[in-house]
């Protein structure tokens, strides 16, 4: 079971990463697909890679949990990890990052390498965090996304030199939709613990 999970997640990670890189030209031709498709693909690739690694590691029986408890204390409740991921997320709300990723190899490297790493850390941190910590960081990310989306929708001037004005407004719509959809989906999936927390 675990071996199959490992293989499935590893293939998913590779496929997501390959999709983001092979179709980078069409994906970055529009601001909306750059921000709302390519970047999430890279983050998801990191998430799947962590799940594959985790499944692979759990396949091997361990005598003690020494390694795990050390890792735990570095990323307790996943808070350092989630803080880092939130700040990386904030970086990709900055229009300059999108523009520079097209012309500057350093920003492109930060995108292609940094986002899967952020995805990995995100998944590893979510394992260790509890509902309150998750809610805090999810809420934080979503209001940030929604505010950025509102700005993108309403700006009368272009924020990215490489993208059209209409495209910017569409990106704004997409960011707002994402900021509503993410917490809604999370709530649907995790209604039990939230309910218990509210009625504790």
């Amino acid at each position: 079971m675990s071996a199959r999970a490992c293989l499935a997640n590893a293939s998913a990670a590779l496929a997501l990463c390959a999709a983001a890189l092979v179709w980078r030209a069409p994906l970055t031709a529009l601001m909306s697909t750059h921000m709302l498709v390519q970047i999430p693909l890279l983050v998801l690739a990191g998430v799947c890679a962590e799940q594959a690694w985790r499944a692979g590691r759990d396949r091997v029986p361990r005598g003690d949990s020494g390694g795990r408890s050390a890792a735990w204390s570095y990323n307790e409740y996943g808070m350092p990890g989630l803080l880092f991921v939130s700040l990386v997320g904030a970086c990709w709300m900055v229009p300059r990052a999108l523009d520079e990723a097209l012309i500057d190899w350093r920003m492109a490297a930060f995108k292609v390498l940094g986002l899967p790493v952020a995805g990995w850390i995100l998944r590893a941190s979510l394992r260790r965090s509890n509902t309150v910590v998750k809610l805090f960081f999810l809420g934080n990310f979503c209001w940030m996304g929604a505010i950025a989306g509102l700005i993108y929708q309403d700006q009368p001037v272009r924020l990215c030199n490489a993208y059209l004005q209409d495209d910017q407004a569409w990106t704004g719509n997409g960011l707002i939709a994402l900021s509503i959809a993410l917490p809604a989906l999370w709530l649907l999936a995790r209604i039990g613990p939230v309910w218990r927390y509210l009625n504790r």
Partner: protein
Amino acid sequence: MRWALALLLALAAGAGSLYWVTAGFTALTAEDARRQAVASDPRPLPDARVLRPDGATVSLLEDLRADGRVAIVNFFYSRCESLCLAQGSQTGRLQQAIGERGLASRVRLLSISFDPRDRAHELAGYARRMDARPDVWQFLSFADPGERDRLLGIFGIVVVPAPLGQFEHNAAFHVVTPDGRLARIVDLDDPGEALRVAETLAAGAGR
């Protein structure tokens, strides 16, 4: 303890990334970053062959040197129906100010088309539409696409094809000295500042 250290490390790495992406918390857009980079570090321009409305092809750097005045440069295309019209009217106001303040011997205006469809005929037509005074406001177009792309790259001008044969492009006033250096980029809404900078540079060059 280790947790606190990890939290600090995460904060440092994340804030460091944000610092780098925003050019030291100063620029959210590439346009802001471009203007700041030029202000702190003026750029020498590569040469490009340019077309004049009279049909002659000349070297841009040679033209800047031969003219000797500080040039306020902007980029346009003659079929533009949006931004360039606003840019054109702002440049028209600059032309008027240059005339009124007797600066025509020290400062000139230069509008350069990035559209390969703009040849001598279109440039001359555009100059007429803008009521340009030939001694104050000149129009050029690129002769070679490769040289155009290189020069636009140094200026930091990004031209994006838009529907209906239009383009979207970033616009500003670029103050260029006769020795072929891009010295400053000023917002389109602030032509007074562009003129002040150009005047200061012209005075500094002893003209």
